[in-house]
């Protein structure tokens, strides 16, 4: 087996445990999309073209609330801003790749693949084929995401609306924050952002409450991290 395949398979293996929560997430997305009246083809198109769980669910949330295209686009952009950080962290390992490979790698740069490949890259700095680890991990996520979307589409026509499955949206995002609940600055940022979004929901025009709340949250993080650092210095 050549080195590229080895990296590729290692990527699949490393991301596999992280795929367990992706399964219900993908199914929930498919169910919700059908619930909200999207066609199966549009739903699949979303999973292939956007390929980002948080982006797709926020899209549905705002779409069903009647938000404008501009608000949906900017909110998806805001949710995705974390990828800028992933790219920043990984760029030192990927700077030698040509443009085509950079495009391919970028398409597969999802949370789970980033998490494991970042570790792998740091341990194998000299391996020039190490980027295949990210492609293997990303492709694993991609396959699970498409399959579970399709399962969700089928279940969407069976599952009754009374179950209140839309409640799974805040729960899923809550679950993505489990590691942050124990850190003081994170908790303050969470409360600030959540409160502004709730109170601003009716007041802030164009359903821009997500971006408004996130910006305030980041500003608070900026101030608190500066303040706390000064205390320790």
């Amino acid at each position: 087996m050549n080195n590229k395949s080895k990296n590729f398979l290692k990527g699949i293996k490393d991301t596999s445990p992280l795929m367990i929560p992706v399964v219900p997430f993908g199914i929930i997305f498919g169910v919700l999309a059908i619930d909200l009246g999207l066609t199966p083809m549009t739903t699949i198109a979303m999973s292939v073209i956007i390929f980002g769980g948080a982006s797709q669910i926020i899209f549905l949330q705002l779409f069903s609330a009647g938000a404008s295209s501009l608000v949906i686009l900017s909110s998806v952009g805001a949710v995705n801003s974390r990828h800028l950080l992933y790219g920043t962290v990984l760029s030192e390992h990927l700077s030698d790749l040509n443009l085509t490979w950079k495009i391919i790698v970028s398409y597969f740069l999802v949370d789970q693949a980033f998490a494991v490949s970042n570790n792998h890259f740091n341990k194998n700095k000299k391996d020039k084929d190490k980027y295949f680890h990210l492609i293997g991990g990303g492709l694993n996520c991609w396959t699970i995401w498409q399959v579970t979307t399709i399962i969700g589409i089928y279940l969407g026509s069976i599952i009754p609306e009374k179950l209140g499955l839309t409640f799974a949206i805040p729960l899923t995002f809550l679950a993505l924050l489990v590691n942050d609940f124990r850190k003081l600055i994170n908790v303050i940022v969470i409360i600030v952002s959540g409160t502004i979004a709730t109170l601003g929901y009716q007041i802030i025009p164009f359903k821009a409450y997500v971006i408004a709340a996130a910006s305030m949250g980041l500003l608070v993080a900026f101030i608190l991290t500066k303040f706390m650092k000064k205390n320790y210095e």
Partner: protein
Amino acid sequence: MSNLALIIYCGLITFLTRFTMIAVLKKEMFNDRIREVLSYVPSAIFPAIIFPAIFLDNSGIIQLEDNPKILAAIIAMSVGIFSRNVLATIFSGLASYWAIIFI
């Protein structure tokens, strides 16, 4: 804008946030300070989705009484804090929500 066009634009934005830094970054553009603040991005964005979905009713009015989602979210959060398990958090929240509304 048609739904498909909107999806394509959203896909493009998602792709560009993943691609931009890999494509153009010079290491010195991002110092530790910016990196540190950016690490709070999930904590700043996700609550803006979570809180309104729990505390607001279908018409966008704040609903604090007779709201099963609040208790279910607190249970899910407690499970999340202790287990640090994504699946356990989601399912404990859903299960308690169903227990409250159906029993």
